């Protein structure tokens, strides 16, 4: 029986191993994959290699169900992007981020990827105008209390999520890819300048390949929310594999990481995708990152924590220290995003609110 801590990455690395796994191992795999939102991704990997029919019937039903759902999700995302395109027709450059971008650009990373929110980026100077346009097209801000309003608008790089009154789809409107208060702020202008227009849309764009990878990396490693760690690593693996075949990608990636100050995120992305998923990297980049590692001895503390963090958040894969590691990473994620004078009151407040009984019945 394989080690449950490495089961999911092994399955991603080598889908051909799935059909011959013992049923008990498949039980664990389906549970871990469901929890990390990777069930449909595995289903497509199997299907693409003609292996889905070879999986025993019981687990196969779960892969097929996830695949059917992911197909629906893809249809919905494309529909939603067309709605956004119309709602934001006055904006010449709207940048789709993360899952929506992978879907719109038809990247391998989008295959079987299911997500809840559509993330977009518009220039900060026009963010209120974007919000008004979206409201006029049916997206409304949910019940957000004053504290959360202030949290988003003052400190974060996005406004509170908007949700469509009928379809209930959720849009996160950003003006850059890391919070205003972050230790390594990223200039939005350089991202907009490099963004690439989608061929079938008048105004929808996606980030340039290097920026897309760096965004995924900073989101996972500085975001503090590791629940979807395996999913994000799988995204990065797919992005590295896809863009890595394009000439000049790797050089551009390293230069971009230095320019935006996201070298540590890139280092961690390369370290973990390569280590866990066997992603191929050119030796030139590895040499640069080795130099980075030697210059930053503190990574020796961070990396074991991160290694725990990217485990599937399922009890089959968790050791005694996993909870502590996740908590430390959660705090660290916040620390990366805001200075201590903001962070401490924020976390204290969140901790207290989470322990209070829910209000009797919230108004819808």
């Amino acid at each position, binding site marked *: 029986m394989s080690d449950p801590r490495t089961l999911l990455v092994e399955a991603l690395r080598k889908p051909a191993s799935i059909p011959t796994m*013992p*049923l*008990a191992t*498949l*039980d664990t795999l389906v*549970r871990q994959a*469901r*929890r990390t939102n990777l069930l449909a991704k595995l289903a497509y990997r199997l299907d693409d290699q003609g292996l889905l029919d070879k999986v*025993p019937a*019981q*687990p196969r*039903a*779960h892969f*097929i*169900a*996830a695949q*059917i*759902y992911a*197909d*629906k999700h893809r*249809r919905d995302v494309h529909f939603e992007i067309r709605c956004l395109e119309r709602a934001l027709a006055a904006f010449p450059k709207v940048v789709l981020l993360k899952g929506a971008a992978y879907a719109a650009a038809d990247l391998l990373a989008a295959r079987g990827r299911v997500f809840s929110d559509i993330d977009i980026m518009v220039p900060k100077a026009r963010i209120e105008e974007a919000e008004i346009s979206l409201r006029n097209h049916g997206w409304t801000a949910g019940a957000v209390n004053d504290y959360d309003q202030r949290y988003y608008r003052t400190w974060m790089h996005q406004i509170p999520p908007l949700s469509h009154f009928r379809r209930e789809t959720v849009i996160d409107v950003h003006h850059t890819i890391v919070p205003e208060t972050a230790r390594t702020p990223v200039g939005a202008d350089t991202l907009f300048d490099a963004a690439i227009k989608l061929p079938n849309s008048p105004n929808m764009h996606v980030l340039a390949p290097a920026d897309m990878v760096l965004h995924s990396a900073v989101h996972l490693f500085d975001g503090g929310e590791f629940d979807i760690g395996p999913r994000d690593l799988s995204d990065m693996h797919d992005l590295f594999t896809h863009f890595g075949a394009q000439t000049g990608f790797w050089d551009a990636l390293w230069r971009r990481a230095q320019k935006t100050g996201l070298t540590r995120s890139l280092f961690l992305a390369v370290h973990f995708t390569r280590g866990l998923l066997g992603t191929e990297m050119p030796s030139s980049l590895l040499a640069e990152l080795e130099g980075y590692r030697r210059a930053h001895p503190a990574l020796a503390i961070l990396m074991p924590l991160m290694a725990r963090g990217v485990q599937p958040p*399922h*009890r089959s894969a968790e050791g005694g220290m996993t909870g502590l590691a996740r908590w430390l990473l959660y705090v660290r994620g916040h620390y990366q995003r805001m200075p201590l004078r903001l962070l401490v009151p924020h976390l204290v407040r969140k901790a207290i609110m989470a*322990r*209070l*009984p*829910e209000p009797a019945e919230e108004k819808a």
Partner: protein
Amino acid sequence: MPTRAEFASWLAGAGAFIRTGPFIIHARTPIAHAIEGITTLYDGYPVTPAEPFADFHVALAASGGLRRFVRRQVDFEFDGEKPYRPLPLDQALPMFEWGLNAVIGGTAHQFLIVHAAVVARDGFAAILPAQSGSGKSTLCAALVNRGWRLLSDELTLFSVETGAIHPLARPMNLKNESIEVIRNFVPGAVLSRPTHDTVKGTVALLKAPAESVARAQETARPAWIVSPLWQRGALCELTPKSRADTMIELGQNAFNYSVHGRRGFHLLADAVERCACFDLRYSVLDEAVTAFAALEIPAAARAA
């Protein structure tokens, strides 16, 4: 077949694996009245203390948080997650059933799932789509004790591949007055202890007939779609219904119609095409049962 004591000890320990139709449910709970309810209702099902694979790993647990000092509550856990709001502790058993319905409805997209009761005779299925409060569970409970086989009182599972309907043969949910009605209608009915003050009022669960449980791997072909409506004092009246209206009603009552897109449309349209479609108004169960007994198998259903 395990004894009830064995079944109970598995539930309280590492979990019991209960087979219901296409699914194996791995269920655990330390809550005594939930154990009593589950072992009453699922006694006689294929139950084992271990299986290599389970479709759903679920548990009922007394919930934590400050609220536990005010009022005891129960959480439905789906593989360690708590997807639903907790309920008062004495509603653990109904929550087990509702939680399972929600988990199946939300994940088992290898089926097109319609919120409808479904019963079968000679391999042909009658689908009873209806809003809650229309008496569909009551009618379903009556029919399966008068010659029809229970597939489900709540979830009609159409295989996306074959269009056949797969049974679940799980307990039936009875509410308020219908609990007494069925007690009188079905001598020797096995019912759980009623749970009061749920969102649906007083709820009791009726054990599925043994034969329906034993035949829970036998699929059925759709032959009739009958939308029931219980009305006080109404004469029993079975009126033909247009296929278009029936199709819309099925779509509106489906859990995951939109998930299946074009294929879902064709699947339902094909089923409606082969079925005889009716509205049924009734007030007396015996009359409704007689109307059902008189249903003839449509030629199109046979040809499928």
